[in-house]
């Protein structure tokens, strides 16, 4: 029943868009809020062209709105001192990095932010992280979903930790599913004192009576 547990659902948003043209401008907050929505959740900086296309407006208009948002976050309303309240800068800022835009935490709060970030960090890898690393090392390139299936737990958070620690990295995408594939890094090999992945110890001594491990995997997922 493994294959049937997930329906290949099309994103509802796209469906809705197909049914009747979606106009971000008509939503509460308008185009500027739509722009914010994207900038707030994108994983990597996005270009003005990408944003213009998504919002179905011109690049010039997008650029103007981006600059406007940037100033707003920085505490300039561009309306002069007509309000009695001083406009306050927000705790986040909009940055244009290498041709793309994304929202970051404001630099002068770095001490607070780093204290928060480091508060939860361990200097040792958890058992869960080590097991995940082991699976990725021996099955690379491999998707998160497949590692999850092998380990029978969700591995999103440990994959993130391992990536932050530069022990693994995205090495490509699955041509069929588009899923990100992970593999180990040179730093990982360095940690283990190995020259290449081929030098990893063979699994067979640890796997009594499991000649057809490949079959198992193929039929299970």
């Amino acid at each position, binding site marked *: *029943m*493994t294959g*049937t547990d997930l329906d290949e659902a099309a994103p*509802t*948003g796209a469906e809705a868009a197909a049914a009747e043209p979606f106009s971000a401008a008509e939503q509460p907050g308008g185009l500027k809020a739509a722009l914010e929505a994207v900038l*707030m*959740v*994108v*994983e*990597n900086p996005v270009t003005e062209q990408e944003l213009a296309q998504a919002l179905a407006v011109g690049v010039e208009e997008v650029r103007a709105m981006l600059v406007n948002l940037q100033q707003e976050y920085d505490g300039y309303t561009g309306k002069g001192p007509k309000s009695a309240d001083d406009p306050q800068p927000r705790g986040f800022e909009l940055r244009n990095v290498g041709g793309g835009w*994304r929202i*970051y*935490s404001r630099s002068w709060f*770095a001490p607070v*932010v*780093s204290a928060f*970030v*480091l508060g939860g*960090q361990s*200097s*040792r*890898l958890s058992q869960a992280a*080590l*097991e995940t*690393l*082991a*699976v990725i*090392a*021996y*099955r690379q390139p491999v998707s998160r979903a497949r590692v999850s299936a*092998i*380990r*029978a737990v969700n591995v999103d958070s440990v994959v993130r930790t391992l*990536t*932050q*620690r530069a022990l693994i990295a995205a090495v490509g995408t699955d041509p069929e599913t588009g899923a990100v594939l992970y593999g180990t890094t040179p730093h990982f090999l360095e*940690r*283990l*004192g*190995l020259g290449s992945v081929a*030098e*990893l*110890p*063979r*699994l067979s001594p*640890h*796997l009594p009576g*499991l000649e057809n*491990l490949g079959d*198992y*995997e193929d*039929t*299970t997922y």
Partner: protein
Amino acid sequence: MGSTAEGVHPPPLTAGTPENLPAAGKAVFEVRLTNFSGPFDLLLGLISKRELDITEIALAEVTDEFISHIRRMQAEHGSWALDEASEFLVVAATLLDLKAARLLPCGEVEDDEDIALLEARDLLFARLLQYRAFKEISRQLAERFEVEGERYPRDTPLEPAFTALLPDLIWTTTAEDLAALAAAALQPRETVPEGVRVDHLHGSAVSIREQAGLLEAHLRNAGSLSFGELTADAAETLVVVVRFLALLEMFRDGVVSFDQDEPLGELRIRWSGGDEPFPADSIGADYGADYGPESVGPGTVDLTLQ
């Protein structure tokens, strides 16, 4: 007693209220009986609201219709609708249990056994309701997932300035350790079930045909016996119930007759058939014909009574 099972059908109920209609999209299983037609879900709804007496539903017909429905689905889509089939199986099994329990006498309660049977009937009813309740709730969950799925959490990679501050990793793992971890993780955890298991649906199966044969032999020998005598050797309640159902079937076919002087008095059963052996194979229309390896065997009744 026989008249309850064979009772006059009330005017047909139709699926007028769409409250329980499943989500549109794929073909919905429709039931067409003399006294009901509409989606299976609605049938369940009516029974659970006691607007339709379970004893008036011919389960064999429902099952026949379902089999042809699912064959049609298979022909159209090229694959078996396992989800729907297993759901039907559980609901049909519960309905069968419920029907059997409903057919039992429900006069004044005299002893613990009667109470136990009445409780069993309510438990079956509760099981059906509970099953439906979780189905309904799961629909609500699906809607919530849908709505909430339109909000995307901010989940951005940490800025390099912060990752650079991470404390140095204390690394004590060797390549051999890693190999052992990988081997353990890659070990198959459990075998994938090959089919839909149904053993948990049914406590144990007692064949109504076998029991009918046994009763026939006893009655031919003795001529007339009380129900108590006929069930004296029954090891469990289930056997008692099945023998009772067998007697109802035999009564319908006119091979036994009942004598009862007063309500809830001693029930005496007399063999009134001829010398011809009773065709026990005729039993089964209501208890499920053989529909392949997944179904309950022919003419068996499964009652999970605790």
